[in-house]
């Protein structure tokens, strides 16, 4: 049967990837029948999407942890005019009508980007009187709610447009997890930093990475823990590391990463947090194989992160350019043995870091495990940074959040089984990676360079 999804009006390019990921998590057979996204602007004028699902139960499961779905409805009819809606309701659904003859119910009108007078509302709702439901009309918590949706063109009130573009009529089934971002709202979180990912997008990221009970997730740039908290909220066991251990430790009292888990009652989902650098990671890894069993030797079901952009400070990696500099000892004391010791860092490139993340993910994700990470890029096509690739990882989705002069993308990959990997492509990938060694910081960090050039195209 067909179902109507009504999305919340934000993050358009994230919508389909989120419900497609949720279909994987829930094992639901999902087919998208219609959803319009303008490829030029990556925006959608319509928050409505029609999908085919095997059952009402599948519809409930599909959206129960969706951040971007408001509601899902059994689709009874749709069309560009009200007459079309009635014709399709009368053609498709008479066999269902008898089920709702005596229950309490209400009819609602949802006019997206449009408005109707009370008289018009009554007229529209009364046009469905042939359904002949005889139960009591109850406005608060009725047994059933039937909704007529109208999809109006943008600015229709101002332009005096008289009719919506499209109508949908459906029976309410379930609501998404819109309360979850509120629960994890940064404004009410004990301990955050300027780079903490907002709770809505952190939860969407966790969905795309298929975080779920019994799964192991890792964030190698953990900061104050936004992604692990979102993953733990969905029942996963989470791990994280950061090059700056102070972000994990906080004030060592209540304002710590652990304190955040405590605040939400998620301590069971806190696996381990440690100070480390991805280029010298302590996480055990095996060389990439050609026919492994898909799990053994690998650890994680998902890797989620928002790597440092390197705009303000330039990316840094541990090590010194001049090994003669004696920062290791100071006043006869071996500084590096102190627990809070932070070694100096040498410039590290954005592109090399992306390669490190991909290579690390290929080595540590189990088959079908996912990597979801955020990456900035310029809006101008000429300066756009391509989606990085790795022969062991297949791109699942690319979502874009657009700002004024730049955008950030959430890129999701799945770890494919060794046997499906093109080993020749892997050799070429490794050769390309070698070329990155020895280039300058600006060459290696195209985003940083574009940022300092204010995203102007060079002639």
């Amino acid at each position, binding site marked *: 049967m067909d179902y109507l999804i009504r999305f919340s009006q934000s993050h358009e390019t994230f919508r389909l990837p989120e419900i497609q990921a949720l279909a994987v998590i829930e094992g639901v057979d999902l087919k998208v029948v219609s959803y319009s996204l303008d490829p030029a602007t990556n925006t959608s004028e319509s928050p409505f999407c029609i999908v085919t699902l095997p059952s009402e139960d599948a519809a409930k499961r599909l959206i129960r942890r969706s951040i971007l779905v408001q509601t899902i409805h059994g689709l009874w009819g749709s069309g560009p005019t009200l007459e079309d809606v009635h014709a399709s309701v009368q053609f498709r659904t008479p066999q269902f009508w008898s089920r709702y003859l005596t229950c309490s119910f209400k009819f609602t009108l949802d006019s997206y980007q449009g408005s109707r007078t009370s008289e018009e509302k009554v007229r529209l709702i009364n046009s469905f009187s042939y359904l002949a439901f005889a139960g009591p009309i109850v406005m608060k918590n009725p047994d059933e709610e039937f909704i007529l949706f109208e999809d109006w063109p943008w600015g229709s009130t101002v332009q005096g447009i008289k009719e919506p573009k499209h109508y949908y009529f459906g029976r309410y089934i379930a609501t998404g997890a819109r309360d979850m971002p509120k629960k994890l709202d940064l404004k009410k979180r004990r301990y955050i930093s300027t780079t903490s990912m907002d709770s809505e997008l952190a939860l969407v990221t966790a969905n795309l990475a298929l975080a779920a009970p019994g799964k*192991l997730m890792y964030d190698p740039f953990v900061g104050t823990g936004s992604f692990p908290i979102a993953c733990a909220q969905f029942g996963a066991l989470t791990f994280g590391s950061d090059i700056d251990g102070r972000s994990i430790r906080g004030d060592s009292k209540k304002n710590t990463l652990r304190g955040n888990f405590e605040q939400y009652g998620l301590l069971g989902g806190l696996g381990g947090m440690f100070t480390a650098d991805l280029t010298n990671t302590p996480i055990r890894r095996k060389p990439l194989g050609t026919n492994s069993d898909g799990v053994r030797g690998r650890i994680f079901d998902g890797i989620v992160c928002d790597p440092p952009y390197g705009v303000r400070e330039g990316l840094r990696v541990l090590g010194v350019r001049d090994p003669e500099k004696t920062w290791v000892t100071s006043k006869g004391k071996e500084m590096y043995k102190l627990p809070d010791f932070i*070694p100096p860092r040498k410039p590290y490139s954005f592109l090399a870091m992306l390669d490190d993340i991909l290579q690390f993910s290929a080595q540590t994700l189990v088959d079908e495990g996912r990597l979801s990470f955020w990456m900035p890029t310029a809006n101008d096509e000429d300066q756009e940074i391509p989606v990085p690739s790795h022969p062991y990882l297949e791109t699942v989705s690319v979502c874009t959040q657009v700002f004024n002069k730049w955008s950030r993308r959430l890129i999701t990959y799945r770890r494919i089984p060794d046997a499906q990997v093109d080993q020749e492509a892997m050799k070429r990938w490794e050769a390309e990676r070698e070329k990155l060694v020895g280039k300058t910081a600006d060459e290696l960090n195209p985003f940083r360079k574009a940022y300092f050039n204010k995203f102007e195209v060079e002639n």
Partner: protein
Amino acid sequence: MKVLTLNFLSCAVKTCKSSSDSFPLHPKEAELAKDDVEINPQLLVNVLPRIDWAALRTTSTELGFPTLPDQPPTAEELEADEKMLQELHTLLMEMQIVEGKLVCGHCGHEYAIREGIANFLLPSHLV
């Protein structure tokens, strides 16, 4: 950090990666704490194939926990063995290393753990 984490961590020094002595790291002067966590058999079954069992046996003994069997249980055996589930749950999911050090058996480098957070950053002569 949970004791489970220890099973995923080896020495960060590049020249140690090829040595089997760099994993597992050996806890030293470890101070343990226990979180009460609800048991999740599904999680333990999922975790089982990702665990290096020989390393876990070493860690368990070094931290003063009961000796684990030579061979890991299969998923079916684990699901049916409530005692084993509970033991692994306590060891892997509830026990936390709060303070102490982790020592590499190959190079001898000691990684400090403070407030449950281990520090794997290396001085430049080891990078």
